[in-house]
């Protein structure tokens, strides 16, 4: 077992555990914390997949910005914790679980077909996933999508400001 495999396996276990806890916990804050853990684990998985830039961005953007925003909003709203763990009664919950199992089974059947079809990793060079290589691809082949993503973020920002703005009295 190489170091990479140990790292990846550990991160995978952490990721699954934290994901389960996200769903299981009643308190939104604790859920959010476990989600941060999950994101960190996924960042490590990215590292094992050769995406060092991606891992850094995952930490910077997801953990550093998006989840902080979540926590910030949770604190701002500070809702009282809800009593029930799940929204529906036992029957619907059970049925949903059954559906989930069926969904998972279908997915895994598709995934397993990969194992036969040469599910090996290609060998890649030193620069694979480096900031420079990702950046070069991003600013050449994916330039338009990149610009569009920028516009999307701008629109989202404006939208968020408009939505969250408290209306002054007498303003329509």
């Amino acid at each position: 077992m190489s170091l990479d495999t140990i790292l990846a396996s550990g991160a995978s276990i952490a990721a699954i555990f934290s994901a389960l806890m996200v769903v299981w916990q009643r308190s939104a804050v604790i859920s959010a914390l476990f989600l941060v853990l999950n994101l960190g684990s996924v960042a490590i998985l990215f590292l094992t997949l050769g995406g060092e830039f991606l891992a850094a961005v995952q930490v910077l953007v997801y953990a550093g910005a998006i989840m902080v925003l979540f926590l910030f909003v949770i604190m701002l709203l500070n809702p009282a914790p809800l009593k029930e763990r799940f929204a529906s009664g036992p029957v619907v919950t059970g049925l949903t679980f059954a559906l989930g199992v069926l969904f998972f089974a279908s997915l895994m059947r598709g995934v397993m077909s990969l194992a036969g079809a040469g599910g090996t990793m290609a060998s890649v060079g030193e620069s694979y996933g480096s900031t420079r290589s990702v950046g070069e691809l991003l600013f050449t082949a994916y330039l338009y999508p990149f610009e569009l993503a920028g516009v999307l973020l701008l629109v989202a920002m404006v939208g968020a400001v408009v939505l969250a703005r408290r209306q002054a009295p007498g303003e329509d």
Partner: protein
Amino acid sequence: MPLVSYISLSAVLFVIGVMGVLLKRNVLTIFMSIELMLNAVNVALAAFARHHGGLDGQIFVFFVMAVAAAEAAVGLAIFIAIFRLKQTTDVTEINLMRW
């Protein structure tokens, strides 16, 4: 780890996320479950990118993150607006769009 492991992990995370969306009562948790699903997809994308030896998958991950950021900003703003109106984050009580 071989490709199948990564993809399986991705599937597991995705299903957990789906379950979270379907079962949870708190809108914020539901929203976090959606992030979970997006992450699961990101793992699969990065794994396939590595499998093919190209970087396009990683670029997609990058875009997914951008979209997630936009989504989080707008989504949370909507939650704030709803919370001001209903004083709750319980999704079963938010049904203004009912006929």
